[in-house]
């Protein structure tokens, strides 16, 4: 059974100010298997976040259905952990309370929350920062907290919306490596949104290349490259060349459409 199933998803945004509709997602069908690491790749504005938000339950599809683990999605829930582009930590809570926020909602006692948080704090390499406040953390550390917080939900799927986009190159590489290690250990399903071809190729078991607006799936590419991925190897570069060509074509079509 597929872990995530998108069936004929269409999303139209009503632009109240300009009184016109915007077709953001056009008839997308996609299923993601258990333990898969799917990268949604596309240029900015093509509807990646919109698609992810519909899986998360923040947005409702105008047409079509989203099911996760066989259950119809009709709102956000703890069975789907989300890591945002901005970490979105509660600034008034220390690191460990942010990680264990879900348990606070479930009414756990403080000592139990603290214990439960530690495992995930260690997993993302933040031991020693448990009592720091978000304002005291770097961008990379904040994202680690966001990841630990999503992992603690022990969700069927983890949704990530360009979580490393704002990080410097070195930190980004470290985090990507750690994320793959965590994914391999936890055996969860990941949907990872990115606009970087390299990032998609380093992380994914599959890459879904999206068209520019309105968003459709242009091509699904299975990656059978060994890990850790060799970013200079010939097969990596074959994939990269192919995807870059797709993106170039998309760009040209869009420009032509704009002129016409």
């Amino acid at each position: 059974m597929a872990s995530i199933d998108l069936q004929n998803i269409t999303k139209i945004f009503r632009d109240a100010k300009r009184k016109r509709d915007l077709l953001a997602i056009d008839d997308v069908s996609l299923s993601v298997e258990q333990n898969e690491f799917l990268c949604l790749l596309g240029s900015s504005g093509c509807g990646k976040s919109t698609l992810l938000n519909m899986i998360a339950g923040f947005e409702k599809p105008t047409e079509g259905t989203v099911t996760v683990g066989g259950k119809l999605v009709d709102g956000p829930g703890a069975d789907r952990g989300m890591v945002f582009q901005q970490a979105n930590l509660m600034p008034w809570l220390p690191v460990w309370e942010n990680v264990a926020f879900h348990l606070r909602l479930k009414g756990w006692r403080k000592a139990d929350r603290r214990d439960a948080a530690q495992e995930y704090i260690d997993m993302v390499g933040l031991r020693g920062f448990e009592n720091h406040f978000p304002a005291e953390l770097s961008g990379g550390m904040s994202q680690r907290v966001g990841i630990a917080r999503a992992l603690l939900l022990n969700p069927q799927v983890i949704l990530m919306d360009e979580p490393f986009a704002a990080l410097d190159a070195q930190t980004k590489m470290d985090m990507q490596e750690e994320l793959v290690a965590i994914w391999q250990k936890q055996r969860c399903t990941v949907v990872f949104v990115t606009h970087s071809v390299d990032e998609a190729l380093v992380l994914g078991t599959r890459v879904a290349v999206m068209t520019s607006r309105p968003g459709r799936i242009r091509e699904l590419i299975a990656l059978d490259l060994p890990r850790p991925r060799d970013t200079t190897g010939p097969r990596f570069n074959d994939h990269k060349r192919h995807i870059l060509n797709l993106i170039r074509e998309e760009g040209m079509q869009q420009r032509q459409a704009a002129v016409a």
Partner: protein
Amino acid sequence: MTALSKSWERAVVPLFILAAWEVFSRSGFLPAALLPAPSVVLHTWGDWIFGFDETSQGNTGRWVADALSSATRVAAGYGIAVVSGVLLGIAIGWWRWVERTVEPTIQMLRPVPPVSWIPLAIIWFGIANKPAIFLVFLGAFFPILMNTIHGVKTADRNLIRAASMMGATEQQLLRHVVFPAALPSIFAGLRIGIGAAWMLTVTAEMVAVKSGLGYVLWDSYYFLRYDLVLAAMASIGLLGYATDALIKVLMSAALHWQHGSTLQSREG
């Protein structure tokens, strides 16, 4: 800079004013009764508090009782204003339908100066604690309400998303995300509110109550005891300062997470 030299900095301006005032009063430029020197005021004030030589006549030794009755009115009216202002503010900020139904009425009542309620307050509640408490409530309620609404409305909606991703119900969102997110703004309202609360207790006591610091102030004016008037003014100022300091302590304890990230945290 050391702590000692900092507290010295704070004292410079008040000390200079006091010294200049003392010299001016003693110069005989104005009749001494019209502008009593600080030393005279201090003496009267001391008698009002400790009752050593009855310079403050009928008020001798009654300061604690007077201060307490004012403070009780502040506490009661302010307490009601805090609870109702914060709760209603969260409701208005969060639910559109509450905003639509309640906000217009609030906005119409808000510009009415609290003191203009005095006649009605006296008719409704008589001459006692209640009209004063009512006035204090009115004065403190609106700033607390408006700041709470603002705090709720400017809460980061991404935090609300994050919490609902973790399975928060609406009630949990309000308690665990919206309320703490609005807290800095709520505290701003609390500090404006406490100033209004003292102002209105004193006003009410001058008109509608027969006890408290405001009553002593107004009564002494009739008896041309400007030293007592000044002592009462100083008492009110001091108590207002002390309650504000208390709220500041509570605030820095509740908002300690802001340390290092705001301009305010530079204060020593």
